[in-house]
């Protein structure tokens, strides 16, 4: 695939590999075979041979020899050497074992041991020394190290500069997805007309993307929301560039009114519907009203309309997220500290004060704050039966987490894989969560913040506390997080659906791509998981503990579908007097009297409470005292001992933290075997002859489970490759070296066109 043909016209500035490198290739037949695997539209920018990839921090004995290349999509280390010490590798079809997507790179550090120099490389940088070592700090917490002791010094320098340059693009259209999708369009145009690549495979077709009227309409009908309608006033993004083309509003508000109101809202983001409870209460999100004079009037009109859309004409409960939750800067600061603590700092040195250091990052505090706030809104929607309006200045960050969490807690559909994906489409992608800025794909935004990761983390807390309620596994959540760092999918690339259309139309025109009726280019969807993983590997997304609607179980000796309690939304709480006593004494009685023996007891929630909070507490206690309703509402336990660090996500690359042969995965494995056995039996039963257990059973039908129950002769033990990091492996992915990096922001520049790395390397 890799060829030395002249670069394509659009990338005029690419270097040819320098001659001395060519000689080496020719004189070393072994190296010659080391060719990168490239995707359509992917081009090698620069490369260097005889590179050592460091595997262990403390010794070079395991190092691998190979070639390091930089393409317009990734850095790739190509080697013939087998990976030492590694028992398992979870393969991504888009990336080789040693590859790092350019958008996953956080910081590039070059060093020269002999000259005792180091430099953090930004784009368009000069490098005054020949690097002997390159360290890549990745956004997914990996730290990868390469040594150039045996490489051509100039080639090494050029590769480093190329990586620095191409990983820090200055324009959205320089992200690889554009080149990739453009190539696809060109290829398909030469073959036949029609859509080049369907929005994705079968799985993505099942996930509603909420790009169309009908997706929203179906969602309104699915939730049984009466009094709400899909409105089309934003078709062609005529009203707002950060709202979807279609959204749902109270039926009583006319298009004309909405158009008028929209001017008063920040970003013209007027209130739009997210979801409705079966009791009729709706969840709505909105930006703030900018126009102070109009504020009262418009608020009144909209509240009235939402009230009208409620079957009981209940009041509206407003939740001002900016006032109650940490802001995105807080979240980013916490995340940076967490990362510093988890991977950058030496393991042993952080042990003694680990717990307080973890507390000081405030990450878990924020996880808890979001869960708590969402749980309180669940109470308002379900028990108080009020519609809830989430207010946030722009309504594009905190609202995304809270709206999603509330729905995950209340609606079992969003705890299935398809449902969860549709939720992300609905509340994040379509609702205008600025993925581009928050993921910082262009490495220039002071707006970087891991709001989406925080949502995945809070979801993980729920999954951890209530595993039977979720169809997906924590591997799925971790892989989903990783996918935000692969700049191939349109899903996580843009600040809004409008930006996708606008940017890709511009790109299409410049590339002479005929779009026809399409609104912008069709980028691959992340929900088309077949692009990244084999069917077998995708089975790891499935949580074997999940009890779905049709999960069979044994009841009184007969097999039935799992019995679902009829939607019993708050049946126990309905009409309960506020001062109800049932075993719980009121706050008044709890207060210790003078000389009393009563221990100084604080109520479980710390703040002094008004009666509403008291009811809420009652609601949570009632909920906690009942067995979990897997197909109803689930709520988090919020005590300090319940909110945990998501170790798979944050420790998977840390070799010292890896539990060999242990971790939760061993239980996952054990249960998978049993679940598979049950599946095989159930299939055998369904076979007409009900004959003997087919010996070839596992081969006949693809299993939904990663781990298969084998024949009776296979060893039943725990596979040797399981560890607490599974399916990821820390080997070679966390080569720390203590350096004090300079913040990237120092090296930012605004050039939109790639500069020649040749020029850069030659300047001194």
């Amino acid at each position: 695939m890799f060829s030395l043909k002249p670069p394509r016209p659009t990338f005029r500035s690419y270097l040819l590999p320098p001659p001395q490198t060519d000689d080496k290739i020719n004189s070393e037949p072994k190296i010659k075979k080391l060719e990168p695997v490239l995707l359509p539209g992917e081009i090698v920018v620069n490369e260097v041979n005889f590179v050592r990839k460091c595997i262990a921090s403390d010794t070079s004995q395991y190092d691998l020899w190979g070639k390091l290349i930089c393409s317009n999509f990734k850095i790739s280390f190509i080697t013939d050497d087998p990976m030492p010490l590694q028992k398992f590798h979870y393969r991504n079809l888009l990336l080789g074992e040693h590859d790092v997507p350019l958008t996953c790179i956080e910081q590039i550090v070059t060093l020269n041991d002999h000259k005792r120099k180091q430099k953090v490389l930004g784009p368009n940088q000069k490098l005054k020394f020949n690097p002997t070592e390159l360290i890549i700090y990745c956004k997914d917490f990996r730290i990868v190290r390469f040594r150039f002791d045996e490489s051509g010094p100039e080639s090494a320098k050029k590769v480093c500069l190329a990586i620095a340059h191409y990983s820090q693009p200055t324009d959205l259209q320089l992200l690889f997805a554009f080149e990739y999708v453009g190539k696809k369009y060109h290829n398909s145009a030469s073959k036949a007309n029609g859509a080049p690549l369907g929005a994705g495979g079968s799985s993505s077709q099942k996930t509603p993307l909420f790009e169309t009227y009908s997706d929203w309409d179906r969602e309104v009908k699915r939730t049984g929301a009466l009094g709400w309608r899909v409105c089309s006033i934003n078709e062609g993004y005529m009203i707002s560039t950060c709202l979807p083309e279609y959204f749902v509003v109270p039926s009583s508000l006319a298009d004309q009114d909405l158009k008028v109101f929209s001017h008063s809202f920040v970003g013209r983001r007027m209130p739009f519907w997210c979801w409705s409870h079966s009791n009729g209460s709706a969840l709505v999100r909105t930006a703030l009203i900018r126009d102070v004079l109009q504020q009262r009037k418009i608020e009144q009109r909209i509240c009235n309309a939402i009230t009208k859309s409620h079957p009981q004409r209940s009041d509206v409960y407003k939740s001002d997220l900016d006032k109650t939750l940490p802001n995105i800067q807080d979240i980013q600061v916490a995340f940076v500290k967490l990362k510093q603590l988890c991977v950058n700092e030496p393991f042993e040195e952080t042990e003694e004060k680990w717990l307080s250091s973890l507390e000081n990052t405030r990450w878990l505090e924020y996880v808890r704050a979001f869960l708590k706030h969402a749980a309180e809104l669940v109470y308002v929607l379900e028990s108080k039966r009020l519609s809830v309006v989430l207010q946030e200045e722009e309504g594009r960050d905190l609202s995304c987490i809270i709206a999603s969490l509330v729905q995950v807690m209340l609606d079992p559909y969003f705890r299935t894989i398809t449902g969860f994906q549709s939720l992300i489409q609905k509340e994040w992608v379509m609702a205008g969560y600025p993925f581009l800025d928050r993921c910082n794909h262009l490495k220039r935004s002071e707006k970087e913040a891991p709001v989406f990761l925080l949502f995945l983390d809070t979801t993980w807390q729920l999954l951890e506390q209530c595993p039977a309620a979720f169809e997906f596994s924590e591997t799925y959540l971790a892989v989903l997080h990783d996918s935000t760092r692969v700049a191939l999918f349109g899903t996580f690339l843009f600040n809004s659906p409008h930006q996708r259309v606008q940017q890709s139309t511009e790109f299409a025109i410049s590339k002479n791509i005929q779009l026809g009726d399409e609104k912008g280019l069709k980028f691959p969807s992340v929900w088309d998981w077949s692009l990244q993983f084999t069917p077998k590997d995708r089975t790891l997304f499935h949580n074997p503990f999940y009890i779905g609607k049709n999960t069979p179980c044994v009841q009184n000796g007969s097999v039935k579908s799992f019995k679902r309690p009829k939607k019993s939304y708050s049946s126990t709480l309905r009409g309960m007097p506020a001062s109800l006593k049932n075993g719980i004494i009121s706050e008044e009685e709890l207060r210790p009297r003078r000389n009393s023996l009563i221990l100084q007891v604080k109520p479980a929630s710390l703040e002094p409470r008004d009666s509403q909070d008291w009811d809420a507490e009652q609601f949570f206690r009632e909920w906690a005292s009942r067995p979990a309703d897997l197909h109803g509402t689930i709520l988090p336990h919020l005590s300090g001992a319940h909110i945990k660090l998501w170790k798979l996500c944050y420790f998977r690359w840390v070799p010292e933290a890896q539990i060999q042969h242990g971790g939760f995965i061993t239980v996952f494995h054990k249960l998978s075997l049993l679940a598979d056995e049950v599946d095989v039996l159930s299939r055998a039963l369904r076979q007409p002859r009900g004959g003997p257990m087919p010996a070839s059973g596992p081969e006949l039908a693809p299993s939904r489970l990663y781990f298969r129950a084998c024949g009776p002769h296979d060893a039943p033990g725990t596979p040797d490759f399981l560890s607490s990091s599974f399916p990821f492996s820390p080997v070679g992915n966390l080569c720390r070296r203590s350096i004090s990096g300079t913040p990237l922001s120092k090296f930012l520049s605004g050039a939109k066109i790639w500069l020649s790395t040749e020029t850069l390397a030659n300047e001194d």
Partner: protein
Amino acid sequence: MASAPTSKYNSHSLENESIKRTSRDGVNRDVGEPLPRLPGEIRITDKEVIYICPFNGPIKGRVYITNYRLYLRSLETDSALILDVPLGVISRIEKMGGATSRGENSYGLDITCKDLRNLRFALKQEGHSRRDMFEILTRYAFPLAHSLPIFAFLNEEKFNVDGWTVYNPVEEYRRQGLPNHHWRITFINKCYKLCDTYPALLVVPYRASDEDLRRVATFRSRNRIPATGGGYESDDVYHNAELFFLDIHNIHVMRESLKKVKDIVYPNVEESHWLSSLESTHWLEHIKLVLTGAIQVADKVSSGKSSVVVHCSDGWDRTAQLTSLAMLMLDSFYRSIEGFEILVQKEWISFGHKFASRIGHGDKNHADADRSPIFLQFIDCVWQMSKQFPTAFEFNERFLITILDHLYSCRFGTFLYNCESAREKQKVTERTVSLWSLINSNKDKFKNPFYTKEINRVLYPVASMRHLELWVNYYIRWNPRIKQQQPNPVEQRYMELLALRDEYIKRLDELQLANSAKLSDPSASPSSPSQMMPHVQTHF
């Protein structure tokens, strides 16, 4: 709702399930005594009191005191609260308030328990009710001070398994391939003459003669000579033995650390700064050091180059922890229920961990400096290991909690006295019941469904603060607000699948029987799918 203190993980209440059920059925109902009793348990008194529940406020109830337990039943209609506390867990009883105390519920008793809780009762000021209750409780909670027998000697429970036969030293040494040409069995301590805190039967280096051992003994603290724990072989035992010292603090530091744990979890769980509060107790740090030491010991032994001499001043606290944990890591046998019982019996009970002094069974001296949660710390380490290797242990969390509950309860003879010679003198095995009798006669309750037996797997836990957790289901079990989901949802799902599998297998067998019946009958037509389908499909 208010039944906080009878958490599902209180093994005392669990074992009484059957008793409660019979009384509900009206079979054994005695209106005057709605109180579960063990055979040999005698009711002493009962009183109306106010139980000051730290979670739900004052609750009026009737308290029953027997020679084994304190039992409280709520008298309020809207509360089903039951307290069931063996007197053995009581470490201290204090009077609160005086004759002149004013204010409601200001006069009564405060009872400090060894299992990280306090019980407070308010009593009427008139009629000596407090004095009576105080005296009776003191008498039966601290029988040693009143020349009364510990309840274990009065307990007449019968089990169909005899737990005292679980551990047989000769058999256990044989399982380990001992004696061999490196190690020999000696009866030098037969009548506990050499060392009264060691067992009668010892395994010692082959080349060390009994005369040598006697000489060595005089130099060792309390004559405790080196003897094998795990029976690890080596060519020249003392030449290749490696000595290393571990930076683990003494028993007093551990005691204070546990006190701090109680401070942050009872009655309120510290909320806003949970992690730093936990850190300030240093409890997990101590757990980490013990585990680290055990890993080092295990690693040295398994590398095969050296035997390990584990040292501490007397050889019965740290030594027991390190050897038994190292053995758990190296030898999968000890990860089974029976293996673990043998491990405790051998490394702790037989080798003279001073249970009586560390726990203070029946002793009123709550401030005794010899008391320390060394065994609790060991069980905590085992729990940490079982968290990291959830399929490696045959026993579950309830097993560990039950052991800890009966470490204090004095219902069984298992943990009584400081050493084997004292136990023999008191004829403990003849006069008391073993805890293992209770457990082994109802093993299913203590089994980990995920257990995967793996004979030769060595397991090294990661002794890092990143993985160590506070054992919430033990230390915070009295707080109803911190309730962990019970039953564990993951475990529950597994049990459901097991039931489903059994059901399917049953049906397949039935189908096959039906098929083979047809095949053997030549007149029958070949089984047609349409005949079979409806039967099977009705269930899907």
